[in-house]
């Protein structure tokens, strides 16, 4: 990098410096370059947000207004049943409210070199998918006279998921300890160890329970869909389990992602969570064909992540952090806030916008921020 450009490292961001570097002619005089740099600093300063600008409110309006134009439709993957994605306003609300359980968790799993070109793609997808007992059996029945459960496997399915009847029996044993399991070819017979299991209802309950026994794959991945995106194959899933997916050796852990921001934050840290938040909100807005400056979303994401964990913009989240009683009370559940404040004798210093609107004082933004001070004695008396 040119030494003169390097000098401006503290004054301009790296991105701008790189852009200058790339665009100046190969031969340029020292004075010319310095002139360019000085002008850039002035221009850059001019583009900065001015002190006292209500950035938060402008962001809120900038996201809120296009929100009124969004559709309430959910998007369906062509041909795949039960594979729909929450989009539009419901998705935005879901993200900004900081919901832990999102409606349609989804992953985009990128693959490493040989697999990304489509090698064993079906097999890989099947391996990722969560398989429970119901997926591999042909029949499950109760013999009432002997009070036993009988499980019959589907041979083809057993092969597909590369498990055997005995390995499944071992897994089952863990979840139903009070049964003795005998393997008989493709059949499993579950017999209660104690004789006091007289209640048939109990047996029915166990029957339903063992259906959900986890056999293979990754927990939480309900559906898999291999897709060709541009030149490579990726796997899109319904259901999300970032931690376990990243452990798989064929997965490209750099690009694999989920739409569950909390999962990203817990696996990769809050900074990653912040970026995921921005990406997810921006994706929705782009999808709807709307135009919102990404900086508004970044500001909201910053506000949500400032505490080191992701907090939603709700009365239990970001709003509960406000220092002003009046501001909190004016959002939701006012009585709760006022009563709690009165119990501990809270003081409201009226430093923010909402409180000052309530008591009709100048709000501390824009022209309301500046005050005029006169040093006593500095004005001559006439």
């Amino acid at each position: 990098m040119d030494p003169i450009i390097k000098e401006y490292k503290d004054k301009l961001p790296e991105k701008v410096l790189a852009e200058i570097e790339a665009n100046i002619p190969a031969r340029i005089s020292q004075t010319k370059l310095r002139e360019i740099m000085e002008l850039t600093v002035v221009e850059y300063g001019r583009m900065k947000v001015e002190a006292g600008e209500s950035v938060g409110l402008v962001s809120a309006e900038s996201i809120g207004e296009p929100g009124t134009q969004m559709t309430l439709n959910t998007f369906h993957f062509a041909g795949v049943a039960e594979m729909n994605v929450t989009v539009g306003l419901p998705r935005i609300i879901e993200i900004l409210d900081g919901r832990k359980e999102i409606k349609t968790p989804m992953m985009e799993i990128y693959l490493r070199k040989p697999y990304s070109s489509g090698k064993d793609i079906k097999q890989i997808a099947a391996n990722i998918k969560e398989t429970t007992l119901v997926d591999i059996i042909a029949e499950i029945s109760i013999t009432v006279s002997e009070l036993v459960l009988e499980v019959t496997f589907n041979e083809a399915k057993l092969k597909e998921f590369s498990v055997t009847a005995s390995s499944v029996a071992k897994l089952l044993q863990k979840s139903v300890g009070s049964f003795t399991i005998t393997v008989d070819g493709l059949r499993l017979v579950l017999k209660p160890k104690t004789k006091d299991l007289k209640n048939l209802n109990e047996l029915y309950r166990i029957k339903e329970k063992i259906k959900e026994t986890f056999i293979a794959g990754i927990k939480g991945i309900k559906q898999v869909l291999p897709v060709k995106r541009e030149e490579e194959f990726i796997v899109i899933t319904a259901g999300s389990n970032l931690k376990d997916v990243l452990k798989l050796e064929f997965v490209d852990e750099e690009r694999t992602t989920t739409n569950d921001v909390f999962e990203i934050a817990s696996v990769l840290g809050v900074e990653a969570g912040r970026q995921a938040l921005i990406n997810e909100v921006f994706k929705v807005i782009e999808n709807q064909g709307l135009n919102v400056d990404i900086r508004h979303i970044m500001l909201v994401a910053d506000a949500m992540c400032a505490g080191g964990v992701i907090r939603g913009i709700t009365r239990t989240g970001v709003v509960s952090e406000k220092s002003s009683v009046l501001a909190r009370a004016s959002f939701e559940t006012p009585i709760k806030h006022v009563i709690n404040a009165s119990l501990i004798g809270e003081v409201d210093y009226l430093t923010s916008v909402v409180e000052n609107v309530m008591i009709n004082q100048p709000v501390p933004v824009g022209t309301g921020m500046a005050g005029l001070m006169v040093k006593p004695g500095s004005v001559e008396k006439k």
Partner: protein
Amino acid sequence: MTSEVYMNGKFVGNVDDPIAFVNQVRGERRKGMVSNNLNITYVQESNEIKIEASKGRVRRPLIIVKDGVSLLTPGHIKQLENNELTWDDLIKHGIIEYLDALEEDNALVAFFEEDLTSEHTHLEISPLSMVSITTSLVPYGNFNQSTRLNAGSKNQKQALGFYAANYLVRMDMDVNLLLNPQMPIVQSITHEISNYAKHPAGQNVVVAVMSYEGYNMEDSIIINKASIERGLARSIYYRPMITEELRYAGGLIDEICVPDKDVKGYRSEKDYKYLEGDGIIYPEALVKEGDVVIGKTSPPRFLSGMDEYNLASSTRRESSTTLKHGEQGVIDFVLLTENEEGNKLVQVRIREQRIPEVGDKFTSRHGQKGVIGLIVNPTDLPFSASGIVPDIIFSPHGIPSRMTVSHLIEMVGGKVGSLAGRYINGTSFDCEGEQALREELLSLGFRENGTETMYNGQTGEKFHARIFVGNMYYLKLKHMVANKIHSRARGPIQLLTRQPTEGRAKEGGLRLGEMEKDTFVAHGAALLLKERFNSDKTFVPVCETCGSIAIKDEYKNISYCPSCGDSVDINEVEMSYAFKLLMDELKSLCIYPTLKLKNKY
């Protein structure tokens, strides 16, 4: 095949051959053996027979068809015309029957007699019966989208007209009467059937379809000032004012009279100037807002102790009926009577002439409503080669997106009708064809497509485009600006919050709401925001020691704190009254808010 039979939704039994059974019941009904109020349906999907004879079903009459031949013969029609046969006879003879929505599922109905095949079971009496009476008043309605017909019939319901011939002796609320109403030139058969000539609701006008100086943007219309002065769309508005002499406990009673000067709440003498000796205004008095129409005094509200024996007039309250803010008119009619309880009842009707003004709403019969955008002198309006100046200029931009073809055909039809001196039949599905109208227009010496060469009224220049001109039936709608116009600079405030009242009737302010507030904050206009919101600005004396609200005695000019006494510093703090109210309400919840005062600078 056995089918279940349900009578009014209850299971009653089984039938072996459902179709034969249903046909038999229908046959008996047509013969009059079974009530014609009964409908029977065979539902194939569930193999059930449903018989309904309960109330609340919507039913409609249809002509019965047998073997592809209508049972209503030309002979019947002749008999009907000669009054030898009535509608009831047709039902009795099994020629016409009423079907409900469910039995219609079993029927195949033909629109026209020519369409009949052996499959058909019924024939529509008229295709017009598929729409309501109001909708059938829309001429050439079959050329339109259904939504426009809905709008068209909705608009007609709001039109001013001649609602009742005895209006002079009636005391209806909010009466609007159109002066000089006319029959439409382009009519449907419903106009004849419904005796439209007895209660017409519009006027025939000359309409030019063109733009005019941008004053007919967004569905507004231009109207000819001379037409208004000739009485076009003039209407009368009647409103009654009612009061009665109420009786109270203890034999006390209201009194309708000119109130004495010592009555509590006495207005100025000027306000009572129109009242005659009996306390009621005289007819034909010109009244404005604030004028008393019926003078009345009421007994005092609360009686206690010795007051009971001292019923001097000084304790009575004034409770006259006056004209509210913005109201005016002429006293039309005074009615003195008594109500069910035998109390004296006085009704005074106020009349007001309404001349069309900018903002009044008009419509054609095709859902093409709009307000007056400009009233223009005829000298400035475009004129045709034959010297015709339009009454109304309608914007062409209203046509393409709404596709109201009937609007255009009515213009041509109206033109032909007015030139040939006859009414045009525009009944939906059964109208005079567009082609015939065009030919007739041509034979009357006009361009067959209804356009005319026109000249700019302001410059005299010929327009490059030919303007589509025709006659239409226009309706004045009941939404008039005079009832809606509203503005406020200062005015009444609410007692509780000291904020401006809400609504036109209370001369209220227009709220600068939450979202509007946000725009001020976004612009950083803090002081402007404060100024906008200071409608309830107050100065509250605050005790510096305890921080609670102190008391300021304006008479003695002293301030003191109710808990700390008068030897403390008390400062006046500016705040919104709503916030002071909030603090008071918190106190009522046993929460004690205090204010810590600090110098701002």
